[in-house]
């Protein structure tokens, strides 16, 4: 089935998937010129989706997870990389987004970053990508923490390189919040280690089921669950732990924003799903602690309050950042409802939202490249000057509203079905009502860019260069395509959801 032949490297794809970007990062530090580093990164990032697709196809074909033992140490003792339907799917999303952005990145980085920092910027990009892929592929709780920190540390640098001085502050705030989140996670993992003596996800889940019989152990386990959920909620910007996100996205360089919006929160969401469903299972995370109820309330709050913040925003990047918080709410809603359909919707939305939001941020990056601002006042009338860019923006925006014929609708459909399956009819209305707010904020910016008289900055703008338009239109086209062909998103998600829901004890 797999069209690609990796030869002898085939069995080592899981480790190569992580090591290629990390070594790419290493080598790119030695390249003094930004162009060379970019070329290296281009080759690296383009190879990653091929690897992850091969892994996904293999997993789908066999139906069995691929276990890669590092150093050939067996599972509980050594670190294993485990690729199952869920992780292979998220790997594909992250590596794909990472690859699509890079052709675009050349001009954007050249315009926004000063020369000596360009190759370091690429280094950080690759390191971040490697870290995110590592979070998803690893089957070891502590290893996940290490990758979480690798990606976070490089993210702080990516954000801090923004041109405005507020970028520094945004990065600092994210550093504080992110570190607290990661530390919470590691406290939880530590408690689990004390209870079970293992760090392997599969092993943990087996040993927990017997360990919780003891009341003391049970309390420690539930405390661990609390710490992990809160810590990861910080990382994935679940309302109200999202305060770091709008500024971080708004002041980061365009490429970083697009990349982070598509991937960073998704990896954290993956880890949360993995821990809550695969490790703890319903017996603990649903019955002992009302985690789903909590997530349900928070995600509904995110869907409404963050969307409202987006409506009144005048900086397009911040507007989309708030929208991201709201969309994370959608994904977490599906996780919280915890049934087959809702989980399918949540997982499908991981890919769909990644594609749409990256497209939107890439379009804004192109605008920033031309006029040096993404404030509404400067962007007014830009649609007439950059019709292709803003048309792609409009398509992705329509996708964000969840209009049928775009991928956003597919996610919403499954979420709504999931809500009905869970017997929560009111949630169905909340899902559609909050997407109405997204109509308002997308409608507002559409009106500004298409129907206002051009601002002085916009009047002289030209259409974005081709290297930016191609990735942008690829993603915008995918937004529509995935609204009709759901084999890659919803079908795979449904299989992954089967495993997660089936894994519940």
């Amino acid at each position, binding site marked *: 089935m797999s069209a690609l032949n990796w030869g002898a490297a085939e069995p080592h794809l899981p480790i190569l998937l992580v090591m290629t970007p990390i070594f790419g990062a290493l080598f790119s530090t030695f390249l003094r010129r930004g162009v060379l580093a970019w070329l290296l990164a281009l080759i690296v990032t383009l190879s990653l989706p091929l690897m992850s697709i091969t892994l996904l196809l293999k997993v789908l074909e066999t139906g069995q997870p691929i276990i890669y033992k590092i150093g050939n140490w067996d599972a509980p003792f050594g670190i294993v990389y485990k690729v199952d339907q869920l992780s292979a799917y998220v790997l594909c999303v992250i590596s794909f987004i990472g690859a699509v952005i890079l052709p675009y990145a050349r001009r954007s980085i050249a315009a926004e970053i000063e020369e000596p920092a360009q190759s370091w910027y690429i280094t950080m990009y690759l390191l971040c990508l490697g870290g995110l892929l590592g979070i998803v592929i690893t089957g070891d709780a502590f290893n996940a923490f290490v990758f979480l920190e690798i990606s976070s540390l490089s993210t702080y640098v990516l954000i801090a390189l923004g041109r405005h001085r507020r970028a520094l502050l945004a990065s600092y705030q994210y550093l504080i919040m992110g570190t607290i989140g990661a530390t919470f996670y590691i406290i939880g993992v530590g408690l689990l280690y004390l209870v079970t003596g293992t760090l392997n996800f599969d092993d943990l889940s087996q040993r927990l089921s017997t360990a919780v019989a003891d009341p003391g152990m049970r309390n420690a386990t539930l405390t661990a669950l609390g710490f992990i959920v809160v810590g990861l909620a910080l990382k994935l910007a679940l309302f109200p732990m999202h305060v770091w996100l709008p500024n971080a996205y708004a002041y980061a360089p365009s490429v970083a924003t697009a990349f982070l919006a598509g991937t960073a929160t998704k990896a954290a969401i993956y880890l949360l799903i993995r821990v809550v469903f695969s490790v703890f299972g319903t017996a603990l995370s649903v019955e002992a602690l009302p985690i789903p109820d909590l997530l349900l309330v928070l995600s509904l709050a995110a869907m409404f309050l963050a969307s409202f913040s987006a409506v009144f925003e005048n900086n397009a990047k911040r507007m989309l950042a708030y929208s991201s918080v709201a969309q994370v709410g959608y994904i977490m809603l599906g996780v919280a409802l915890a049934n087959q359909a809702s989980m399918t919707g949540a997982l499908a939305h991981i890919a769909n939202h990644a594609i749409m939001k990256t497209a939107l941020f890439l379009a804004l990056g192109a605008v920033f490249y031309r006029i040096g601002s993404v404030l509404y006042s400067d962007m007014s009338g830009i649609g007439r000057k950059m019709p292709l860019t803003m048309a792609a923006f409009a398509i992705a925006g329509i996708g964000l509203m969840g209009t*049928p014929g775009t991928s956003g609708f597919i996610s919403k459909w499954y979420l709504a079905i999931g809500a009905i399956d869970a017997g929560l009819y009111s949630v169905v209305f909340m899902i559609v009502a909050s997407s109405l707010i997204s109509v308002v904020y997308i*409608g507002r910016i559409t*009106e500004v860019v*298409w129907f206002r008289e051009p601002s002085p900055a916009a009047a002289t703008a030209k259409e974005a260069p081709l290297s930016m338009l191609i990735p942008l239109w690829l993603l915008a086209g995918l937004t529509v395509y995935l609204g009709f062909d759901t084999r890659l998103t919803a079908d795979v998600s449904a299989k992954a959801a089967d495993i997660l829901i089936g894994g519940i004890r």
Partner: protein
Amino acid sequence: MLTSLTSLTQAYTSQELIIAALLIPAVAAVLIPVFYKIPNLRELVTLVAAVALAMCTWSLYPRILAGEVPELKVWEVAPGLELAFKIEPLGMLFALIASTLWIVNSIYSIGYMRGNNEPRQTQFYVCFAVALSSTMALAFSANLFTMFLAYEALTLSTYPLVTHKGTPEAMKAGRVYMMLLIGTSMVLFLPAVILTWALTGSMDFTAGGIIPADGANALSPLVIGGLLALFVFGIGKAAVMPMHFWLPAAMVAPTPVSALLHAVAVVKAGVFSILKVVVYIFGIETLSSTNANAWIVYLASFCVLLASIIAMNQDNLKARLAYSTVSQLSYIVLGAALASAASITGGALHILMHAFAKITLFFCAGAIYVAHHKTEVSELDGIGKKMPLTMFAFMIATLSIIGLPPFGGTWSKWFLALGSLDANYQFACAVFMISSLLNIAYLMPIVSRAFFKPLPGHPEDKPVAIAEAPTACLIAITITMLGCIALFFYVNPALELIEMVDLGNRTDAASALNGVAPTGGTNGR
């Protein structure tokens, strides 16, 4: 003519014709911007596409009459979400109306847009073509998902047309338009679709409906009524009060848009959707036996009257016509809500009759604007002397709206009134009659003002120089005006088509056509 057309397209299967009907406007939308520097060629693309589309639909017509039900399953997006098309008689009728009037409207548009020197004409024609493509998809949709998809596409493609002028008022109207149409469709229509799927496990339009009213999985009348409410209010394009605000607001658009989209394609898409949902999702038996439709009957009757009364107080000509449309749309909703064979026939016929009459009225309003830049009713004193043909057409269309013979509007009102009696809603019959009086009250004064009041600032005894709109506009007005008359005498082709509508097992549509009440025996239960 029809036979020669049929032999021309004989070689194509019905499926191919469906694809052609969907793609021709879409291809036109791609080609129009290519020729944006050569306006004549650009307009030619629109005209050729319009004629080709009408040829497609008209050559499908005899096949549908012959009992063929062409189906086209394009793609299953996800379990339950299937992109599929199926031509049933109601959709055929709607497609015929929209595609035929597109030709007329294109001729008119060319005269209007050039006569007014409107900016951004290319964008105008592109959006128009996309809107037509969506309309065809809606007419031919085989299930709720496809219908919803086309419905949203229609809203999005007409938004740039509403905001065409780019003035603050146009932008404000655009916001109202988007929020009401997208808003209602997302918050009410979509949940209705989802609930239908969740409750019945199907979204296909099926003869007799898919909502079970009796048997093991019967739904309570309350649920059915609630679901119907979601549909009726969710399909905001039908402009059932209080979801009608977008329609008067949308009148800032150029007149050809108001004419084809806000008298024919968009608003009729709304009522057509309601009709289709009532007939093929609920099934008229289900509705009449559970009485879940009662409250909509009252609501729609109320809308008919209230909108007419509001129309009387509008001085802006297009606003008056818009409220008149709101009122007339409620006729069709009322026809659907009455859920008897005759009322469904009346509703479907009214889509046709009102389309011709109202597009004529809008054409006239546009012609007056192009020729004399007048928009208010109070400015129209004596205008009939300057524009005799235009105002004559206005009068004919007015009479058709009122429902006087020998004009098309007679038939639809006849069947609607008959249907209300069949369904044992005598007061609805009274509503139709009162409303006809109200129609006279708000439309006839315009005609009398135009013909009998003296032209201000002009001596009574001197002859008035005739100053009509551009010829292209006049041609269009004449065609639709003649249509209003012809439809009285040649109503049969439409009736035969509606006769084909499969209302379910026990009710016979044919009996309604003979003026005999259906003897289902379920109504009085």
